[in-house]
């Protein structure tokens, strides 16, 4: 199951920044946003690391998907950017403190354990809450929203037009998923 930048743009559309996504995000050959609102490389790398943990193992193409989606969100919302950067920095500091390594150096299972030890799995997402609540809001739920509101993530569950995605009025009439790409 290959995530694509198209999925990321779909997720951006769902998040309400569709109108700017194409222009502001895909501004170099790699689809990376190099504008003023771009994230530091270490923040993007940490986000990809969290995505690799919270997405199903079958998901491929996570890095460009995350870079496009998150960059798009950031470009549209500077306050959100600050929240993401802060949550990543705090999570990374916790990783260094608790297990003696930066988040991006941890394997998938170690990252998973770190998040659970922080109680991120059971935290109520809250942009103004404690570290677990902020990580849940800015990182985990941000990434899950992007994934499961995209046709590709939805298809893994059995729905090519998930809530929040403007996938038209054909799919609800069909008895099974079509073979298209969303």
């Amino acid at each position, binding site marked *: 199951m290959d995530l694509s930048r198209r999925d990321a743009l779909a997720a951006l559309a769902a998040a309400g920044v569709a109108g700017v996504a194409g222009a502001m995000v895909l501004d170099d050959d790699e689809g990376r946003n190099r504008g003023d609102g771009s994230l530091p490389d270490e923040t993007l790398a940490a986000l990809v690391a969290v995505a690799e943990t919270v997405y199903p193992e079958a998901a491929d193409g996570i890095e460009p998907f995350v870079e496009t989606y998150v960059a798009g969100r950031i470009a549209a919302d500077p306050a959100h950017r600050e929240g993401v950067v802060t949550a990543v920095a705090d999570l990374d500091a916790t990783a260094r403190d608790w297990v003696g390594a930066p988040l991006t150096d941890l394997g998938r299972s170690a990252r998973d354990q770190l998040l659970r030890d922080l109680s991120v*799995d059971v935290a109520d997402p809250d942009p103004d809450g404690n570290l677990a609540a902020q990580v849940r809001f800015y990182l985990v739920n941000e990434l899950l929203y992007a994934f499961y509101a995209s046709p590709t993530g939805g298809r893994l*569950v059995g729905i090519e037009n998930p809530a929040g995605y403007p996938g038209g009025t054909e799919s609800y009439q069909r008895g099974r998923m079509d073979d298209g790409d969303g």
Partner: protein
Amino acid sequence: MTGMADDRSPVPDADVCIVGAGPAGAIVAAHLSEAGHDVVVLDAGPRFDLDDRTEQLDAHLRPGVEETTRGDGEAVDGLWGMGGKRDAYTSSGSKEYPLNAARVKGVGGSTLHWQGMVMRLHERDFELQSRHGVGTDWPIDYTDLRPYYAEAEAELGVAGAADNPFAPPREDPHPLPAFPPSHSDSIFAEACESLELPMHSVPNARNSEPYDGASACVGYGTCKPVCPSGAKYTAERHVARAEAAGARVIDRAPVQRLAHDGERIEAAVYATPDGTEHRQNARAVVLACGGVENVRLLLLSASDDHPDGLANSSGAVGRYFMDHCFAGVGGRIDRPTRQNHVGFNTSECHALYDDVDPLPGVKLEFLNYAGPSPVSEALHADDWGDSLLDSLRESYGTHLAVGALVEQFPRAENRITLDHSTTDDHGNPVPDVRWSIGPETRAAIERVNEVQRAILRELDAEIDWTVGSDETGPAFHHMGTTRMGTDPDESVVDPDCQAHDCDNLWIAGSSVFPTGGGMNPTLTIAALSCRLADRLDEWM
């Protein structure tokens, strides 16, 4: 410099002052302003920016994003800023009434969060007393309202089809083609055919094709509470029309009372966010702020001449409060049901509506959004990765549900009054809602539950929930509290929606319904507003 949006001063020499910018008031405003009258509309709530709808979708789907404060610093619930002292109320009936979930204050009113189902009342709804000896007759019948129903369907851009064998007669097709049936409708059709329950399309105030300058539905799936595409009708369309024709719409201007000389209203006294009060004079006033606030405003306008409230010599103001009760059964079957692609329904059944036993009308609805949405479930889960995907796959895909709206008959003890022990942000007594469910409605709910279970049993479904007579709740349709009639001793407004007791007061909306039927009320609200605008135009 003060912008137009911040200028909340009264309009000099207004012909008509309309209180409330929901569909009832906005349609009147558009028609009268286009007819050349000077119209001013006052609404207690704000204008909601159309550009914010996708952010509202985000807030709806993502936990933790909800707007938790309003501009005035009050804590609120939901996407549309309801709650806090501004919207305080009490609920003292035997059945709790969640008033602030049931309405929106602001330009567009409750169409901002509504589902958008728009069917005509049946002929029997206007003649319940004559035909069955219950409730009361309307002073007008279906024939009177029929041309206005057609007009209202054009106003709202209704997508529908003439495939309902139980519907009242109509001449012309709906302005837009109906949305095709869903896959789950085709599953239900097997069962309903064997149970002799003909299914038919749902008339939707939602664009199946581009209409009235708005997009066709693009399938966001979040119709209730927010449509980011603009395909679902909101009364903002009529507000825009009214403003284009010269009407002045003042938001965040809650009307405190209607100043009157005993026979005529002189002014609507309203407050503005800067703490000042203004008087909007007008030749005529149209109350259009819903079945609860219409009442509260009349009661707050009591005087020596009208000690029980304005236009209340009958004592009927606030009484006969009705809603529709929800009944439903849901379960799972062993094949894909394809739910939650869209947020609206495409098929229903009116077979349990006319001349049935028990008598209350029942409208069956075949839901297209049964069971959990994977997106929302993922964001609330205590897990992630492959195990989350496994649980989403297990929980999604095979749910089905049949809902229903069930009629309430008018009961004098179900009523809106003032609770003088609690005050709002302007020091006014808040509304008290006394709501209960009568035995005939309970019997109808139990009967429709049997039918709903029979449908699911035909499909070999495993039934896992029922909303019955104990669990039922309101469908958020506030009707009956300023009832229409010919007898001033028994009713509040005449058949033209003009108050018996006050020559220049008119009331729009479902508060004038003498009975409520079992159909979603907004098309009838719109039809009555078209009719009221005609009558008021003549009166002017």
